[in-house]
Every structure is written in C-alpha cells, then in structure tokens.
C-alpha cells in the first residue's frame, strides 16, 4: 500500500493538483479515455480481425473466432 502511495505521489509531483470543483473540462465527453459504448463495440470488429496486435486496455474479454 505504501509503495502505491509513493508511486502516486511521484506521478503527481510534476502535475498541477486539480481540485474536485475544477474538473469541469475534464468531465467533457471528448476528454474520456474510453470510446463511447456504441462506438467501442462496433470498432472491436474492424481492426483486431486484421492485425496481430491486441489488448492493452482491459482484461476479461473473450476472443472472437475472426477467421
């Protein structure tokens, strides 16, 4: 736990601390790190079925038979 806090503190060192009430812009949809559900599910079918690389974002998803 202490290691985690230390990591968090190191990371935060170079950044401005943003208070909860200053998060207005961060809450905008365009600032989201994940795609909207509708787009994400559709996109899953396009690139991974053509490329060897996959993953990086989440675990627990199954594969597809993409042949």
């Amino acid at each position: 736990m202490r290691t985690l806090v230390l990591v968090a503190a190191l990371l935060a060192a170079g950044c401005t601390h943003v208070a909860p009430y200053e998060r207005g812009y961060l809450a905008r949809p365009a600032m989201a790190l994940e795609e909207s559900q509708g787009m994400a599910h559709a996109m899953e079918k396009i690139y991974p079925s053509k490329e060897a690389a996959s993953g990086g974002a989440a675990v627990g998803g199954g594969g597809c038979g993409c042949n």
Partner: protein
Amino acid sequence: MAATEKPDGALGALMRAALALPILALAPRAGAAVVGEVGASVLGYKERGLMKATEPILFGHAVIDDVWEVEASAVGDILTGASPQLVTNVNGQPMQVLTGASVYERRHAGDAKVGRRFGELTLSASAAVSNEHDYHSKAGGLEARRDFNDKNTTLTLGYGRANDHVGSSIDPNLDAPRTTDQYLAGVTQVLSPVALVQSSLAYANGRGWYNDPYKFTLTFYPDQPLPSLLPDLRPDHRRSWAWLTRYRRHFAAQRGTLQADYRYFQDDWGVRAHTLEVAWDQQLDERWSLRPALRYYTQSAADFYSPVIPRPAPRFQSSDQRLAAFGGLSPSLRATLRLDSVIVEGAVGYVHDASSLRLGGSGTSAFETLRAVYGILSVTYPF
C-alpha cells in the same frame, strides 16, 4: 420545472451557453438513484466486394446510488463463416485463393460487468461469452481501481482468464481448447484542469490451440514434381505484452480536444507492432461535434510466417496475412449530435493495409493489399 424538458429559443440559447461553463446547471433529479444510458449501434463494412452489416449491438450502462456500476452488451451477428483459404505459388508468386464456398453463420456474444465502490476503491467483476458454430469462448475478469489525491491519480489492476474452444466446419472432430491468463496494471494521471494521461501495461500468457483450421499453404518448387501442402501450424503457447498510453488535452479557446493513443505490442512469436491514433474533437456548437482521426498501424512478421513453405519444412509455419509484415493507414470521421434526450453518433472510416505502408517500407511482398470502408451508426438514450 417544465422548462427543462426541451428548452429552445432564448432559454435554450442561454442554457447552452451557461452549460459551457463548469457549473452545476442541471438540477440533480430528485430521488434519481439510477443514472445511465442504453443504446444500440450498427456497423456496415465493405471490403473488396464483400459487404457486411451487423445486426444492432445493444448496450447499456448504469450507476446506482453512486455506489454500484453495471455495464452490459449483447450482439447477435451474422458473419461470413470461415472460408478455407489457400496461399499458393502456383503462378510463381504466392497468392491467396479461396477454395470453398463462404458459409453464413451466426455469432452470439454478450458481456457484463458489475462494480462496487468502497470509498476510493472500486472492485469489479466481468464475464463474457461468444459462441459460433466453430468457436466458443468464455472469459471472466476482476479489476481493482483506487483513486488517490482527490482523484488526480488512479491506479488500476486487473486479472482475467479466457477459455476458448476452437472447432472447424471442415473437420468435425476438431474441438481444441485454449486458455489465456491476462494481467493488467495501469495508471491514470490528471495533468492539469484541461489535460490527462493514462498508461497501462497488459501481459497475456496463453497455451493451447492456436492453429487456424481454415488456412493452408501450397508451395511448388521448380526442382520438385509435387508441391508441398501444409496446414497452419503455430506454437502451442503465446506470451504477449501490450503497452498503451492515452493522452487527452482540451483547448477551451478553440473549443476542441486533442486525443492521442499509442500502443506498443510484442509477443514471443516475433510480432512487434506499433499503433498510433491521433484525433481532434471539435465542438461546433452546443449540440454538434466533429472528430476527424487518423490511425497508423505497423507490424513485423511472426517468426514462423512465410507465404511459401521453406525447405526443409519447419515445425511452425503460417501464411496467414495477419502474421505478415505490413502497415496500415486508417482515416476516419465521426459526428456527434447531443440532444437532451438522445445522443446520435455516426462515423465513417477507410482502412488501407499494405506491405508498402510498413514503417521502414519493407513489408511482406506477398501481402495482399486491403482496402475497406466502414460506417457506424450509434444511438444512445441517457436516463
């Protein structure tokens, strides 16, 4: 408060201008314990004469009492079934040939995720299933997310396991298992009131059946009367790493947001890949936004990839294009319309994969260039 139903005219204009500011302009609905959205999306795809449109993918997401979070999706797809493919050099150069009729198949898939917040910590569990005639997959995952520093920093840890069974419509005896363990560690950091970054590392360790039952290689040698034929032969394990970094930066004066994602992928089959996607989300007015994007992809070939069978025949060999060295460029454009009661998103994109697009230029010459166009329409109802 009737005015919040559909403000238009002067009130609408004032409300929309006010909402651009970081204020609490919408009254928290009294007693609204459940907040979320449901929606559906459809994908249309066209590649070299092949046209495909999926049935609507249904999805939903809800936060209950600010403590529970649930997410789910379901799809009943009609896919072109696997068509046996042969890579043959009968005409001198290796090329792909379809040897059987395409079969239309259904795929049913669904996933669900449930999470509960305990102060700064959120724990979630997820499950996913996917079933086709020749492929079955079941997966589950656990995730822990912890906020630090007024949510300026967030750490995420995840573990998942997937169990797949591979079958074949040309070999009814095939029912081969494959198990993959997945591990994820990530950190999200707020950089300023207008910027944030996320970086995560995923490791996957899989063992079991990786051969593609529908891919064959047929090679003619000038000094041999008979050609050699090999099915797809891959190792029975695969270890891979993926490192994904995402950056978001809002420019208030321009009313736009820069989005940049980079992923590095490496596995023990010899594949190294880079993916870079850069997009600009431009707010046009209070309802419309437009997002042009450009995605670049490059990968090296797997060690055992070859469009012709080497001599002597190796232990592992595959002529599957997905393991070749190539690069791809994919521009896309998305438009979003946000109304009070519905959000509509439409996107079109073009995918161009070719050996010449590989970083450094020297992709697999036998790689068959891919040109595809896709369109997505998604409708979401918030509640």
